């Protein structure tokens, strides 16, 4: 078995070794449905679509994803097991990828468990299932980008709390960057290229495109590049810490 698969399996099992993963899944599903029905009013709106449900994903992920990724490296360093792992015949990059993939699979499970809302909306009306599928895919890619950012922050510190806060802050800034409120304010004083650049960097505007039903390759590419960048940065940070 390849080292990536071996480490991935160990990581994924460790999520479910304690009740924390289950508690987490329940809270995630509870909040998502609460938001969608109570604040998003998808039932009362009379529209058979789920964009009100997906709109909350970038916000809920701010809390949910850093809580998954904070343990990636901080816990290994804190318990000393990182020394055991990295003296096995595995490369740093394999370990970084394996941990990331395990987290991504865990998020995929959480996301998949929201399926009743998809069934419900199909029962109530006839939604555009292509758009819903694309939105799920977009949400999954967005989660990957968040996780990669979290992986980087977790590699920076041995404290899971600090890793959580840093990941939250960076993801929060990336979400807010595209928000009309922020964009309008920036437009007042900044150069146009800065406004465009900021808008292009925003998690929110890319995700918004996808849930509107426009699955543009550029939006997917954005999340893929953001993820790849922070995973490479995770490996670079871990490598730099070996020499410090």
């Amino acid at each position, binding site marked *: 078995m390849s080292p990536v698969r071996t480490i991935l399996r160990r990581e994924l099992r460790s999520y479910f070794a304690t009740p924390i993963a289950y508690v987490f899944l329940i809270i995630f599903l509870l909040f998502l449905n609460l938001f969608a029905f109570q604040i998003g009013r998808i039932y009362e709106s009379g529209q058979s679509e789920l964009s009100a449900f997906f709109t909350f994903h970038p916000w809920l992920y701010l809390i949910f994803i850093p809580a998954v990724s904070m343990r990636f490296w901080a816990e290994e360093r804190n318990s000393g097991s990182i020394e055991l792992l990295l003296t096995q015949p595995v490369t740093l990059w394999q370990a970084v990828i394996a941990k990331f993939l395990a987290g991504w699979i865990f998020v995929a499970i959480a996301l998949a468990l929201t399926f009743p809302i998809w069934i419900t909306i199909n029962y109530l009306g006839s939604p555009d299932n292509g758009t819903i599928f694309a939105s799920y895919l977009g949400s999954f890619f967005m989660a990957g980008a968040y996780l990669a950012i979290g992986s980087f922050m977790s590699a920076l510190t041995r404290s899971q709390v600090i890793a959580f806060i840093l990941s939250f802050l960076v993801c929060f800034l990336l979400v807010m960057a595209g928000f009309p409120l922020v964009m309008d304010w920036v437009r007042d004083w900044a150069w146009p290229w800065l406004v465009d650049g900021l808008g292009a960097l925003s998690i929110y505007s890319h995700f918004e495109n996808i849930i509107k039903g426009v699955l543009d390759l550029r939006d997917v590419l954005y999340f893929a590049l953001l993820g790849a960048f922070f995973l490479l940065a995770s490996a670079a940070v871990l490598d730099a810490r*070996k020499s410090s």
Partner: protein
Amino acid sequence: MIKTQTLTKNYSGLLAVDGISFSVEPGEVLGFLGPNGAGKSTTMRMIAGFITPTSGSASICGHDIAAEPLAAKSALGYLPEGAPSYGEMTVGGFLDFIADLRSLAGAVRKTRLEYVTARLELEPVLEQSIETLSKGFKRRVGLAQAIVHDPKVLILDEPTDGLDPVQKHQVRALISEIARDKTIVISTHILEEVDAVCTRAIIIARGKIVADDTPAGLKSLAPSGRLDDVFRTVAA
């Protein structure tokens, strides 16, 4: 075999290891002695590839740890200081995980897992999670992990720390038993261990080698012929 050449580690101004060169041949059991903070663990970590030396190099069975890390690590069994592992895993699950990483398969895998379980007396705790184990068991799980793939080279950082006298004796017997065709380095601050298992000892202090000889040769350095007198003199 293990070979290090002017291995040096500088922690932003603090010279933890200062140009250490030595080589260890198969069949040798080298005791690595020195006061706390002398640089024993740092040296071992550099040889095992966990930290990168500021300068100098180390190789395991001819594979340079910087140039061919996977080949070097494959030939090495390493017990880090404090025998860290994954607390939430069961002993059996943990050893399976290591066997997977070490690419053990089929009959060899089964034989090796049975061997380490029996030799380190881990049968009664195989289904228990590691965090619930006593210090002695944890250390033996760490040892099992280090030898499961029958490596040519073993680096053990304080292998008997936390063990009771009976367990200490067993671990020393195990080391002597497997030492014949292997290259072994153990660090310790228990001087009697040097007499019990080592064919050679290096004393390091403040990051430098201050003595390198057989246990008998080291003893002859002090008029009293006692190892702890030698230790106190050269390490002071």
